[in-house]
């Protein structure tokens, strides 16, 4: 079974600063998919970014980027130029194969302050 660990239950960052959220996972699979989801107070789960394990290049989506270290089984999320709207719970998730269910970490609550 795959496990996903987010070691930071809560984090805080000032507006315009950069913050990194950590995620590690455990799997014996060689190919898989990793995701970061955002859940704002509205509760809607929003996909932030995804990474295919077979791709060496780190994924980037505007202000969001990941640092994917396959050997270390690490998948951190960097948010640059933090905005108040980034305040949310962030979940790291693992997918074994397309169409399979997601294995989620316990989440990191991020607060962006003015």
């Amino acid at each position, binding site marked *: 079974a795959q496990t996903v660990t987010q070691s930071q239950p809560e984090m805080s960052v000032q507006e315009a600063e950069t913050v990194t959220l950590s995620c590690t996972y455990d799997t014996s699979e060689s190919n898989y998919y990793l995701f970061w989801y955002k859940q704002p107070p509205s*509760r809607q*789960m929003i996909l932030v970014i995804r990474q295919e394990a077979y791709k060496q290049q780190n994924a980037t989506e505007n202000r969001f980027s990941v640092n994917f270290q396959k050997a270390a089984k690490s998948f951190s999320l960097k948010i640059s130029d933090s905005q108040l709207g980034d305040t949310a719970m962030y979940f790291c998730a693992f997918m074994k194969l*397309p*169409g399979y269910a997601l*294995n989620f970490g316990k989440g990191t609550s991020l607060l962006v302050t003015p």
Partner: protein
Amino acid sequence: DVKVTQSSRYLVKRTGEKVFLECVQDMDHENMFWYRQDPGLGLRLIYFSYDVKMKEKGDIPEGYSVSREKKERFSLILESASTNQTSMYLCASSRETGTINQYFGPGTRLTVL
């Protein structure tokens, strides 16, 4: 845009009641999922379905059942609700092939008194 809807945002039920949580997706997705979200525990998979009338247990199926009579609808059933089933329930759907993204509904916050 993919749309996943859930029948209620908030629901209050009494212990022992039979509870139905409905989920509908409008993009002809083959796969549908029910997750339970609790503070400090993240999201945990209850049941999933890869096709009509097909279901598979997830990590925490005890006390729940599901029904998928039509491709677009996936129902979660609490046969006899208990207080420890007070939680947030999230439905999701995805394609079998092609894009791997899962799309989530807005969630149902269920309180069992």
